[in-house]
């Protein structure tokens, strides 16, 4: 006998000081912040309160992106296309949704030509709530629009 059940549990996550500044910058200014280590200069994006290279405490935030380089992407049918993006000015990649191409002015997810190394740019949501999804996703720039 199998009993069916559903787990529903509202939860509150503290984004932390650095995470909150990152999310507020997305919401208020449509800017992406990374954490710059004053010891080894590594810029970690999205920012965390410690350096991803040397584990020192990090408090200095710098603007990165919104353009970057697509290092790799994967298509999960039914779930979406996800990319590993190295934002300009950052040393660590961000994982986010890949929306497609703009040609011209409209998103065309079917016409994705996503060669690794392609240039991408962040597309911000119109209604932003202070979440990572305030970046709706990344658009692949085309050389020949």
């Amino acid at each position, binding site marked *: 006998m199998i009993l069916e059940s559903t787990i529903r549990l509202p939860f509150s996550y503290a*984004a932390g000081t650095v*995470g909150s500044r990152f999310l507020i910058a997305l919401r208020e200014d449509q800017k992406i912040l990374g954490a710059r280590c004053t010891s080894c200069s590594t810029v970690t994006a999205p920012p965390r309160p410690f350096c991803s290279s040397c584990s020192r405490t990090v408090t200095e935030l710098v603007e990165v992106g919104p353009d970057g380089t697509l290092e790799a992407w994967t298509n999960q049918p039914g779930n979406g296309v*996800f990319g*590993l993006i190295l934002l300009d000015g950052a040393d660590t990649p961000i994982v986010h949704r890949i929306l497609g191409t703009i040609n011209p002015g409209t998103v065309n997810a079917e016409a994705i030509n996503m060669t690794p190394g392609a240039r991408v740019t962040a597309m911000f949501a119109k209604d932003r709530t202070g979440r990572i999804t305030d970046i709706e996703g990344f658009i692949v720039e085309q050389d020949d629009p």
Partner: protein
Amino acid sequence: MVPPDERSRALVSVLGTAETKVTFEDPRSIPEMVLAVVEAALEDAALGWHDIDAVVTASVDLFDGLTASSIAVTEVVGAVMKPETRIAADGLAAAVHAVHQIMAGAYRRILVVAHGKASMAPYWDLTAWAMDPIFLQPLGVNFLTFAGLQAAMLARHDPHAVSRWATTAALRRSAATGGIAGPISVDRVMASPVVASPLRAGMCAPVGDGACAVILGDPNIGDRNLGEEDVRIAGIGHDVGPHHLMIGELTDWAGLRRASQRAYTLAGVTKPTFAIVEPSCLFPHEEELFVEAVGIGTTAPHSPGGGLFAGTAPVISGLSRLLRVVRALKGRTGERGLAHGTWGPAGQGQVVVVAETP
């Protein structure tokens, strides 16, 4: 063969092993599955409940759908009024913790148990809840997304990678006699649906339900069950990498390299050659990362029974690899084997055990 000057470095002895047959859906409850393997392992070791000093269990509440997996297993592993350590990682990491406890002199004999039932919920969807809640969960990514990104990184400059991985998957499934998914041709692998490009469904090890138990003991206590033919654990290594993807960590299992080096140092392994090697790889590209990291060479055989492509269950994979290494080595003289476990997205956690016979 283990060189004579490298022998007799045993950390602990393996006294008994047992596992359920992995199936896509085991109708038994978690306690029933766990009890079955515990009783079988005790019988294999010719020991009783009273002979066990402590228990280390591996389980993940998220996968069990329980607020605490202790609800399901504490009684059936005989841990009531005994010390139970429970870890949320691969079962081989539980074995490593048991080795630590025996080496510290805290206990003589420890029961190690792992269980997982992927049939309880869509497994890959469930792994989305094991991701960072601020930066990753809202995107809908899961462990399969990360595996796809890892495979994509590896295939960037390797046009033959995908066809090679299809061949590997077909080879493993063919070797998996009695496997839960059956043999598959390379063409069928390539024709199977994309699950996280470039990975296709036929390239993924089938994940179902299973439980596994191993009993470890202090080799220096003159246990009546210890004989010359017993398999000993001679080396252990354990390493955890960052949760957030780093480009370098994706294309190189550096954590596994560090873990295997620690195990080799403890075991006195100067050249990593083994009678049997059992990696925990759910995807063919992971096998290539594994071979490179543990340094066995690309032509060294491994996964004689098809590895995880024969079928596996969450959490049990590494402990079941140890079981297979132990059973392959038992009765042989001066041989060495390697078991591997991993957990988390894209191989975040890595654990290695080197076993040998005197």
